[in-house]
């Protein structure tokens, strides 16, 4: 018991030390990005837990600015991909180009070979392009011709979807959406924040962020995140939440059963556990508490719960279902 206590103590100290970079990062990002704290937190969580983000929000909410600034602060490569209906998988992944001079094929790597990628309006590209990107996201390697290339770490894709314009779009299939660790919904900034944004843009020079870290720091922080302690009680809590999405009637919420066509997959449990640890790390804690799980629950589950026709007819969202589950599942 004493030994275990020392472990946690040491871990807490270690995490407290290592997570100092998060404060530095946040400060640097806030120089450029006003508000959108939740989006920045989620970006860092995804970066620390080696996941990808699907972002939903109207245009002009600093999505590109956020990820490009993050890339700059951690000294990472950044590429923005605008998805269009005529885009081809090779436009993203790369292709083989024949050189008549050398009489051989040479490989031209696509923009996916970067650390941070903004896949803008991912639902505007046809299924084969989406599929190519999502496969790369999952496998973290790309095959062009006979050669296979490993994608360099850290590798984070932040894809965006515009919730307003749905015409001429190719909605992502559930199986592919599941590959995003988080789905974050962002809203307009507050009045005070927007006033600040306005001032930034009217000033002579737009604020700039500096490179304060190396990508290696992020990779080492990832290793520390893995060490964050998760008690069995928290594991049980995560499982209860995920199982409540599958069999709500067993948790006394049979009323939502008809609204759910499918619940969270095992990937949901795995990701909820991972991001809870990362969130605890951001909060500079060496162990996960129920607050961490609850804070990340919506982002992990909102794209992993399938709604039935009844739910849509009654205007019930996945957020409503998650709220109901969180209000019913007891904290151990």
């Amino acid at each position: 018991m004493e030994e275990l206590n020392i472990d946690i103590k040491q871990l807490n100290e270690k995490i407290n030390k290592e997570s100092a970079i998060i404060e530095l990062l946040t400060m640097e990002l806030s120089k450029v990005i006003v508000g959108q704290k939740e989006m920045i937190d989620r970006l860092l969580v995804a970066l620390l837990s080696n996941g990808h983000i699907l972002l939903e929000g109207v245009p002009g909410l600093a999505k590109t600015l956020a990820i490009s600034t993050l890339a700059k602060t951690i000294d990472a490569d950044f590429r923005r991909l605008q998805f269009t209906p005529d885009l081809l998988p090779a436009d993203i992944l790369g292709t083989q180009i024949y050189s008549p001079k050398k009489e051989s094929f040479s490989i031209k790597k696509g923009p996916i070979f970067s650390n941070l990628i903004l896949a803008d309006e991912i639902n505007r590209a046809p299924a084969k392009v989406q599929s190519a990107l999502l496969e790369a996201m999952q496998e973290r390697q790309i095959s062009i011709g006979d050669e296979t290339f490993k994608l360099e770490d850290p590798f984070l894709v932040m894809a965006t979807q515009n919730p307003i314009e749905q015409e001429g779009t190719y909605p992502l299939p559930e199986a592919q959406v599941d590959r995003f660790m988080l789905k974050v919904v962002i809203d307009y900034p507050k009045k005070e924040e927007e006033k600040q944004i306005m001032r930034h843009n009217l000033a002579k020079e737009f604020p700039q962020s500096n490179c304060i870290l190396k990508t290696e720091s992020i990779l080492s922080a990832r290793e520390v995140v893995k060490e964050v302690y998760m008690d069995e009680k928290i594991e049980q809590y995560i499982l209860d939440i995920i199982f409540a999405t599958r069999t709500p009637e067993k948790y006394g919420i049979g009323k939502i059963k008809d609204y759910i066509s499918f619940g969270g997959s095992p990937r949901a449990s795995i990701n909820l556990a991972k991001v809870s640890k990362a969130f605890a790390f951001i909060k500079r804690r060496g162990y996960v508490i129920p607050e961490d799980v609850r804070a990340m629950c919506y982002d992990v589950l909102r794209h992993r719960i399938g709604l039935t026709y009844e739910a849509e007819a009654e205007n019930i969202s996945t957020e409503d279902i998650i709220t109901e589950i969180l209000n019913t599942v007891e904290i151990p």
Partner: protein
Amino acid sequence: MKNLTLIFLFLSTISFSQKASLEKDTILIGDQIKFTINHVLGCDYQIEWPIYNNSIVDGIEIIKKSDIDTLYDHDQEFPIIQQQYIITSFDSGTYTIPPIFFSESVKSEELILVVNTITVNDSTKMSDHSPLLIGEDEDLTTEELDKLNENKRNRTMIIIVIVLLLIAIAYLVYKYLQRKEIIKPKVIVPIHVTALNKLQNLKKQKLWQKGELKEYYSEISTIIREYTELRFVFNALELPTSDILSELKKLKVEKKIIESLGIILKRADNIKYAKGLSLEDENKEVMELSVNFIKKTKIENERISK
């Protein structure tokens, strides 16, 4: 009464009988009955025939009277002289009709007429008992008769339904009263008493003394959350510590109370989720703080009965 002298001459020897009779000797006020005077004549016999004008005696009034009639009966040898009166009385009492003298030696028997009143029951409510004015069936057409019969059937059905309903209501009332007698009101122990009892039991188990620190703090945390949920009516069992404290703040609970609850729950979280350890004094302190939290926030004189 005047006497009319009549002279009859008969050929045969004296052989006669005389009679005055009442149709009934007891009547109700207003009832009409026959009063008959008969006299059988012999030959050459002289009688005096009674003549009544308006009444037989005081109180017995004459409604109608017949002529004096002479009847011949086959069994009788002599004719019979008869006169009938329709009489009534509007005063109750017992009336004596004295003997009628047909001659000095011939008379009828004395008659008694008892007139009764109608007994009126004062407790009976006034209601209209007059029969429905329905025309004679003979005057109605077949359709009207069918309708009439249908109405009668409907009325009967309604009466049956009402009777059945009354029986059902009576049965239900009976059952309800019977049930009420069986289920005695259950007094629920106030929530603070339940929580304090649980804490007392936990203390007796001496969990932290046995090294079961996590169980000890888990139990305390559950007891406090259960109590908070019932006392402040929000889902404390499903909320993490920070949210519970925020909720209490919103409910404007005293700051010191929230702070002490914060110490209990945060310490419990540390033990439960972070393999934390605590000193002996801290374990005792958490128990004391829990008891004080309940005592300070309890509702006085709480009695809930089901």
